[in-house]
């Protein structure tokens, strides 16, 4: 069935590609605006025109009858939530065939029908960072997506103009997949370091060869490598590294490698022991994207603390809270609020963890992450303050288009009913932190853990 669908999609592609992303007009009246960057504005209106925030102020009226008007009196209006680590909306996650697979891009495997995307919208999340898995030291390129749920066109999900990003991975996962699974380097954290050093050295040579050729210093055309092209772009600062990491030693290792190759743009993902090296992270200018409270599900997260986000924040590291899960992504506002129990972050600090900070980490803070004139009309509206357990998302808006409206939720929100859909996955034997970072690597392991 899926095959037929893909054939149909391929045939229709020329038409689909012409399809434009809808840029909507909406006026939200009298809400309490949690702008993130400009404080809290009581009883204020916000006007979105053609997908962009046009005005923020009092007594704004709709320029025409075509504007959707939302009465947000008594409600809380905040920028759409951003998840810097997710795997929703993807058909495939891991290209686990080599310790270095920089040539692949998860953006080539977008699944616009994934119901998780709607469920994320129902949790106020408008943008997510669809990441490659953590099987390889240098994994594939990732894709920042906008949750334009409703489209048949995978390309519509791609956030146009978002910087390129790539997944790196340290520790147990690459060691298990390659060392333990295939008997090749890396089997240790020493090996992981050498994967990076070798790859970047080769990329430097590759870069030099092409520069020599392009400037006429060398006559023979060097061999072209899609893998090296991407690594060279990392050296040139054109790609932001997002590195799956847990332990302090490996985090320090990668920062040392990056210093040697003069690479600066790095966000450490998970980074459960980031709190131990917060001063080093801050000094390097690295950012951190963490879980609110996940720990102990494997050895490298045993010495964790739910106070991680607070310690990192207090030490000057730009920090976000991510989901890495189709479940947690539905309540990132709740995950962010946990930093108030574990570390006393203020409302503003807690909300930054799921808005402007992940936007900075993805290089899209000029577009999203706060309510400011000129930014994208990505907005989440809650009935109560979003850091309260009693808050329920009411509307989620992407590019000025209402994508989730709690009162008009149709229950079955699938775009297509695929007969191949798994009827249910309702039996949960042992519910631990179950995510997709290691999805698709079963063949490489004798024993597959459901853990990250």
């Amino acid at each position, binding site marked *: 069935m899926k095959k037929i669908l893909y054939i149909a999609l391929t045939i229709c592609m020329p038409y689909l590609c012409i399809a434009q992303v809808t840029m909507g007009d909406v006026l939200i009246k009298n809400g309490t605006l949690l702008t993130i960057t400009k404080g809290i504005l009581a009883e204020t209106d916000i006007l979105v025109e053609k997908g962009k925030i046009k005005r923020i102020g009092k007594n704004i009226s709709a320029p025409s009858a075509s504007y959707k008007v939302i009465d947000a009196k008594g409600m809380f209006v905040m920028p759409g939530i951003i998840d810097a680590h997710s795997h929703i909306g993807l058909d495939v996650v891991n290209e686990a065939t080599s310790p270095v697979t920089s040539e692949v891009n998860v953006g080539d495997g977008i699944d616009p029908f994934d119901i998780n995307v709607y469920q994320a919208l129902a949790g106020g999340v408008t943008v997510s960072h669809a990441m490659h898995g953590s099987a390889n030291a240098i994994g594939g390129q990732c894709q920042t997506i906008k949750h334009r749920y409703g489209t048949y066109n995978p390309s519509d999900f791609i956030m146009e103009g978002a910087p390129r990003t790539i997944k790196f991975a340290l520790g147990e996962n690459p060691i298990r997949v390659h060392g333990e699974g295939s008997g090749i380097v890396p089997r240790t954290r020493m090996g992981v370091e050498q994967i990076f050093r070798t790859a970047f050295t080769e990329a430097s040579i590759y870069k030099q060869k092409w520069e020599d050729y392009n400037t006429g210093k060398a006559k023979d055309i060097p061999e072209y490598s899609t893998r090296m092209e991407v690594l060279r772009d990392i050296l040139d600062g054109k790609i932001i590294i997002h590195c799956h990491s847990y332990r302090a030693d490996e985090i320090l290792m990668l920062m040392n490698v990056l210093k040697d190759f003069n690479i600066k743009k790095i966000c450490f993902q998970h980074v459960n022991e980031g709190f131990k090296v917060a001063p080093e992270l801050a000094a390097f200018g690295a950012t951190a994207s963490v879980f609110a409270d996940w720990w*102990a599900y494997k050895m490298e997260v045993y010495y964790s603390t739910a106070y991680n986000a607070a310690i990192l924040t207090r030490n000057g590291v730009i920090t976000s809270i991510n989901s890495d899960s189709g479940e947690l992504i539905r309540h990132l506002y709740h995950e962010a*609020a946990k930093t108030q129990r574990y570390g006393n972050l203020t409302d503003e600090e807690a909300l930054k963890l799921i808005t402007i900070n992940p936007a900075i980490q993805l290089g899209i803070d000029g577009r999203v992450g706060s309510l400011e004139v000129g930014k994208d009309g990505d907005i989440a509206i809650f009935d109560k303050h979003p850091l309260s357990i009693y808050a329920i998302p009411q509307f989620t808006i992407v590019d000025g288009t209402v994508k989730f409206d709690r009162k008009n939720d149709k229950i079955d929100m699938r775009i297509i009913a695929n007969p191949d859909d798994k009827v*249910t*996955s309702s*039996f949960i034997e042992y519910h631990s932190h179950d995510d997709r970072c290691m999805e698709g690597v079963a063949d490489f392991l004798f024993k597959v853990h459901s853990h990250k």
Partner: protein
Amino acid sequence: MKRNIYFVFALLLSMGSISGQMVSKGEGGTFVLKNATLYTITNGIKTGDILVENQKIKAIGTNLALPSGAKSIDCTGKRIYPGFIDGGTTLGLAEVSSVSVTVDHNEIGDVIPQMKALTAVNPNASAIPVTRTNGVTTVITHPTTGRFAGTAALINLHGYTPDQMYGGFSAVRMLFPSTGRFGRWDRRTDEVIKADKEKAFDLINEVWKDLTLYHRIDSVATLRKTKLSNYRPDLHTLLPVFRGTAPLLIEVNKREDIQEALGWVKKYKVKAIFTGVKEGWRVADEIAKEKIPCIVGPILDNPGRDYDAYDIVYKNPSILSKAGVLVAIRTSQNENVRNLPFNAGFAAAYGMGTEEALKAITINPAKIFGMETSYGSLEVGKWANLVICDGDPFEMKTKISHVFIKGWSVPMENRHTQLYDEFLTRSPGLEVKD
């Protein structure tokens, strides 16, 4: 051989490094908790004092006198709740889930009800202090694999031996034959699932046939005061369930399976407690009609079917409760059982209301386990399992200042707070020694 020695050595080393948690001692004695707002659960909300003596709630009232030697805790502006009870976890049975030598909830075998969770509870598991400081004082900890998976136990989260921790209730856990998939990674075809289910029923029928016989032999042996010639630990453990004198915890989630379980329970007159019950909302009236209590959860979970409402799992406890089912909430967790109040909070927000959701983690599980004279509310004579906090305990902002477990004031520290204390302002910071 040499390799094996290295392996054993490595194993010992690794076990040494993950042996659990060290925190300060609990504080025992007599306490008077003064001027608190008491969320009694069973007798409304009132202002007053609680006297904790001999591990129990000795008195509740206003201006209670301070017995000599008693410690007084000023609770002005604070609330006191009974300790929260999680109806289903693996707490204490696994230290690091992915390291199999530290995992003790998954014994080999299909019919192993005699495997006792309580035996394997590690009183120093690092997750225990992490859990109780969030107000969870008592949990069911259960085995996870096998058709008859073992015997689950109610434990209090303070004590140095499993026996000290034992909460007075235990029950065999059965995983009812399932026609659902285990998760995203379960790629079995529908035919295989059907065959697996039929095989599972064959096994149960066989066990019940054996039990019928075993019951007779045992009855005769009891009458004649002789020993059984053919002792079977599995059947022996199941006898009270077979005879309807002990409850059976039945894990069942998908609608079709719940309906099948309802029929099975009726047919064999099993004293059932349903657990999981993810799709209970689909058949709430049927469950209510059979008066089967349900331990529901996790609440923070995706719908089981792509075509279901995104929030249906949040609403599940509310729908069941409104249909008349006695509902408790569980996390089904190990390291994050501390999220129980937040699971209850989501249930509260999505239809259940704060009062009912509180019951679902206090008096309701106590009732389900037949322990309502000892746990689940602020009443004189019950164990002093208490949570003192500065606001609604479902709210993340709320701070819990004291937790009492069987009269012991437990230390409000755990691995997470200890690492916070050490690393918030690290010293040395960036300085490098010569």
